[in-house]
């Protein structure tokens, strides 16, 4: 397994754990109130810090174990896989934005809209990483 693929696995697991906790633990009962927005802010802070710490530690650990692979530049297959993943991530992002636009007309509060947009970004990221991991496993850029 290449260094980039390992990094993708770490990112996938970290994002699922961090944002899984966020969406499960979020106090949905107060989402419509102004306090819901502050709850999001308060919860996003540890989520962001946890992701940064986990990624930094995992990247450093893997780079120390396989320095030669860590220093390799992205080649044409890596780039093709990257582009394909980003392409598929566009769809959940667009759907999420449209759902957020419709939510505006249903008088959804700012915290609900924030969480809808956040969910769209998280789903898009999971789609991007998932597609890239699938293509890395398959070996072919598609």
């Amino acid at each position, binding site marked *: 397994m*290449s260094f980039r*693929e390992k990094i993708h696995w770490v990112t996938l697991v970290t994002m699922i754990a961090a944002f899984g906790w966020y969406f499960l633990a979020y106090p949905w009962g107060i989402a419509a109130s102004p306090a819901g927005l502050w709850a999001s802010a308060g919860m996003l802070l540890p989520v962001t810090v946890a992701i940064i710490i986990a990624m930094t530690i995992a990247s450093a650990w893997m780079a120390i174990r396989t320095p030669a*692979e860590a220093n*390799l530049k992205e*080649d*044409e*297959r*890596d780039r093709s896989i990257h582009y394909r993943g980003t392409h598929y991530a566009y769809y959940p992002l667009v759907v999420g934005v449209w759902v957020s636009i419709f939510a505006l007309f249903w008088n959804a509060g700012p915290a609900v809209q924030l969480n809808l947009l956040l969910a769209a970004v998280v789903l898009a990221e999971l789609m991007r990483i998932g597609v890239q991991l699938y293509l*890395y496993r*398959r*070996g*072919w*850029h598609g």
Partner: protein
Amino acid sequence: MARLPFSNDIRTLRFLAGEMTQAELGERVGVTRQTIAAIEQGKYSPSLEVAFRIARTFGKPLEQVFGWDEEGR
């Protein structure tokens, strides 16, 4: 998975080049070992530039490394 419409003799050429490893070939060509493995297994079609670089590494013309596979079309 659909097969690519061409085959290659990279494995044989590596053997004839003194059992050159995929990592060594990748280093000379400028791609990762995993990319060489994917090309060898017919899972990834390289760019024309990488194809030429592989052929030049073995000192062969392109058509002696890659061949059109009618059955794979």
